[in-house]
């Protein structure tokens, strides 16, 4: 009886979550689908974005995200592996590092934006540019990626490490062949979370990658991100709501594509490794 109640509650929560998000997404789809067309994706914006398309903005968004990922993936994974595999859990230094990371995950994005503005744009003289935006986003994503990856690695049973050590396998090999594949769903989840946060970021990017909605010619050019575009259209441009919802829909579709491909990659890796292991 209690068991049945529990099952019911679980299905109910799932239902509530699904409905709430259904409401939100259907709102975006209904309002935005009218704007969606091939020319919306391939034209330059006109009349402050009320008309025309969002092609340069999509390109800028992808460039900013790409820059951030190139930096954050090696840094984040490396740091997480070091934390999880090459240090003693109980050591003071590791615990304080972990605490610092948690605090940094909580720095409001607008503060990252101001930091990026002062440090990357100003101190390193990168100006308003895609590079500054990408670097700022990388700072934001770093703590999230490190903590989720570390959690994934910590969850791998210690038996496997002991077995590896007993067989004389180097930690590096063990890591690559067993631990990372095993933790790959967690790593992917962390990566997707941080990518999600990055694509959704507005506050930090207004201050760093800027407002220019022209096609960027290099990473040193200022480029407007999609989320910034949506914010500007909905809060600052008279009569921009339709285009704002249209852009939001494009952004959501982009996130779906990124998510699907990342999940597929991680599953492919996991299966390949684990199958060989067994």
């Amino acid at each position, binding site marked *: 009886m209690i068991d049945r109640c529990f099952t019911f509650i679980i299905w109910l929560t799932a239902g509530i979550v699904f409905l709430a998000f259904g409401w939100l997404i259907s709102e975006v789809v209904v309002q935005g689908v009218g704007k969606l067309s091939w020319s919306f994706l391939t034209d330059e914006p006109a*009349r402050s974005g009320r008309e025309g398309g969002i092609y340069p903005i999509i390109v800028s968004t992808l460039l900013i995200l790409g820059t951030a990922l190139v930096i954050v993936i*090696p840094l984040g994974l490396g740091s997480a592996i070091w934390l999880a595999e090459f240090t003693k859990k109980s050591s003071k230094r590791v615990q304080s590092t972990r605490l610092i990371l948690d605090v940094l995950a909580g720095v409001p994005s607008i503060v990252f934006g101001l930091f990026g503005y002062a440090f990357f744009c100003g101190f390193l*003289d990168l100006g308003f540019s895609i590079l500054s935006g990408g670097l700022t986003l990388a700072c934001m994503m770093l703590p999230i990626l490190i903590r989720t990856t570390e959690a994934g690695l910590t969850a791998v049973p210690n038996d496997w490490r002991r077995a590896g050590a007993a067989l004389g396998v180097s930690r*590096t*090999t063990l890591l690559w062949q067993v631990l990372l594949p095993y933790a790959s769903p967690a790593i992917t989840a962390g990566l997707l979370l941080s990518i999600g946060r990055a694509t959704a970021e507005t506050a930090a990017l207004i201050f760093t990658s800027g407002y220019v909605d022209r096609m960027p010619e*290099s990473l*040193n050019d200022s480029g407007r991100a999609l989320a910034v575009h949506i914010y500007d259209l909905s809060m600052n441009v*008279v009569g921009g709501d339709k285009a704002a919802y249209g852009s939001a829909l494009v952004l959501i579709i982009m996130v779906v594509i990124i998510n699907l491909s990342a999940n597929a990659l991680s599953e492919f890796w996991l299966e390949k490794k684990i199958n060989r292991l067994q």
Partner: protein
Amino acid sequence: MRLFSLFVKVTTAIGGSVGVATFLVMLSGATTFHATTLHAKENTRLVLTGSSTVAPLALEMAKRFEKSHPGVRIDVQTGGSSRGVADARAGRADIGMASRSLKQSESDLFSYTIALDGITIILNKDNPVKTLSNDQIRNIYTGNIKNWNQVGGRDTRITVVNKAEGRSTLELFLHHLALKNSDIKASVVIGDNQQGIKTVSGNPGAIGYVSVGAAEFEADYGTPIKLLPMGGVDATVETIKHRRFPLSRPLNFITKQKPHGMIEKFILFAQSTVVNDLIEEQYFVSLAVPLK
């Protein structure tokens, strides 16, 4: 198998250091590259920063200017009037944008008005109230009048929509009513124009003040809001243009020195009739008089 694992070992071992290396190379490379491009294009790249009210207009002007002046790039960044003034003074921007006049402490800078903007009271369309005197507005905003039936409306609680600290709209409004911001008892505080319009259109008891042009456009396109006259003068583009409307503000370009070269050209361009259609499109009021 052996070969593969060796390969893997090598790649993972160097993978980490490559990460750091890429990071550093990207940083240093980007810095030098940036410096050289800046140097090469020094005379052809203009940077504008400042008021979020002016930014969309300046961006459109910049695009049109670039078309007629090949090789020129104008980058428009947003961030608020005070930042526009500060950036112009510090040389971070060639032109600062401000949606207010220069203050006394800023009189060493040069300002050029490119358009006018008015501010008026808006109510939800369902609200039967047709007009409010300055006294009534003052009493509503200071919390002495809390219900619409005290000013001839329905029995609904008043939702007072105010702007956030530092906005030039707020300063103008307070100045007009001779109030201090700490006197105001707001129920909602907003940032930008559109947020104000959305708040009032979704709340039958709300009162707010926003840019006349924006409100006119939204009302024309069916958003349930209405504009109230201020001091007996209707809030329209016409009354602002003839400087009859009591609450108006200039949209300015700010420079540190007397403009010359491309900066001067762009400012003259922005003040000319060539861009009148762009100004109207943003629902501001142009000052340039067409040549007869």
